């Protein structure tokens, strides 16, 4: 347990020293969202209808941005081989990495999302489900993204390939995340959508590290 927390703290410290990474992800999130009023027009009713979708999709894309570097720095300087030899199983190390990624990327996105939804005139009923859905969904995005990051280590055009691999797997989270907000706005039950989001998270927690660790093992062979 302490080794696990040690790894999480290591990644958090590295991310904080870098500093710019989380800020750039947030800046991209912001800019991508405000492109939409320019693109589709500033009419409040129309923006309100598509606000949930815009916020979720751009949050997905912003989460993708920092995934490529999840294992890359350790892979390139050889520390991944050292980590693979540690007594803590590689699966738990992947969990630690994904947790750190969620804390440095996902959580800021969750905090900023209501502000951006405000700019898009999301009806007031939607804010709670938006934040709750994103709080449940962004850890899943970090876990699924960890699979993609581990698979594309050392590949040519790794960043683009990562997006191609990971975006189809993100679609269920997107469907239920937006579904929760839409349900709240139209006065329907939000529980089913949030339960399914939780189910996706609970399924990702054991399964994603297994796949990612297998990919990491064959990357350091």
């Amino acid at each position, binding site marked *: 347990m302490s080794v696990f927390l040690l790894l999480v703290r290591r990644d958090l410290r590295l991310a904080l020293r870098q500093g710019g990474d989380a800020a750039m992800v947030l800046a991209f999130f912001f800019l991508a969202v405000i492109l939409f009023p320019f693109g589709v027009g500033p009419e409040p009713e129309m923006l309100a209808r598509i606000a949930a979708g815009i916020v979720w999709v751009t949050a997905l894309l912003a989460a993708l941005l920092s995934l490529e570097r999840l294992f890359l720095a350790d892979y390139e300087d050889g520390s991944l081989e050292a980590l693979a030899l540690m007594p803590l199983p590689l699966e738990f190390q992947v969990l630690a990495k994904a947790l750190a990624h969620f804390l440095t990327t996902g959580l800021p996105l969750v905090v900023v999302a209501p502000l951006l939804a405000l700019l898009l005139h999301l009806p007031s009923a939607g804010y709670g489900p938006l934040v709750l859905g994103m709080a449940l969904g962004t850890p899943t995005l970090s876990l699924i993204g960890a699979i993609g990051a581990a698979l594309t280590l050392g590949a040519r055009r790794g960043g683009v390939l990562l997006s191609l*691999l990971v975006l189809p797997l993100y679609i269920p989270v997107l469907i239920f995340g937006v579904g929760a907000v839409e349900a709240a706005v139209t006065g329907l039950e939000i529980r089913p959508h949030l339960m399914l989001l939780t189910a996706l998270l609970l399924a990702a927690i054991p399964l994603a590290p297994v796949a990612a660790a297998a990919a990491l093992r064959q990357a350091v062979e």
Partner: protein
Amino acid sequence: MLRFANPARFMRLSAAILPYCAGATAALLAVGVILALFVAPPDYQQGEAVRIMYVHVPAAYMSSLVYAVVALGSAVALIWRHPLADIAAQEAAPLGAGFTLICLVSGSLWGEPMWGTWWVWDARLTSVLVLFFLYLGYIALVHAFDDPTRGAKAGAILALVGVVNLPIIKFSVDWWNTLHQPASIFRLGGPTIAASMLWPLFIMALGFTLFFVTLLLVRMRSRLLAARISALRLAV
């Protein structure tokens, strides 16, 4: 299973089987096409346009079957390090992507006269589109590494991760309110489709399956021969 891991033995076996596979494919497809286009009855609602079903449904079933083959080959390659298993998976993937494309295009051509739209974002169509992108992602990942063995292993893991999409495709018409027709063949309570339409459909599906087997054997043989050629070139 490991008896067939020897590439030379595979080449001998496949050389023996291939003519019969190809012949059976041609025969079944010929019979199936004649039955589908001329013998099977027109639908009481859709008229002659229902005959697209005899291409669309077998292609759809093949797209899922081939993905299962890719996933199975990947599992065998990862667990037992069977040398031919990941070759089979890699050579099957483009065929599966092709079947998925045929399924999507034929479905779109069928949807226009029947539903009045080329596309609709319902659960079945969306999950098959995701399957198409899973195939493309698998092919891209396998070819993205300078070291082919890394590509093979990474692709194998990705194929297994994507297997979760298969039950979603199968049950999507039950779980969601969809425009796409619900299951009429593989369902509890037996098929609800008339026998005069079911038989041509089965023959076409069998023809498509043997077509896939024939092409897969040809592709695997080409791959092994190419490996042998490059080994000979390096030896000279």
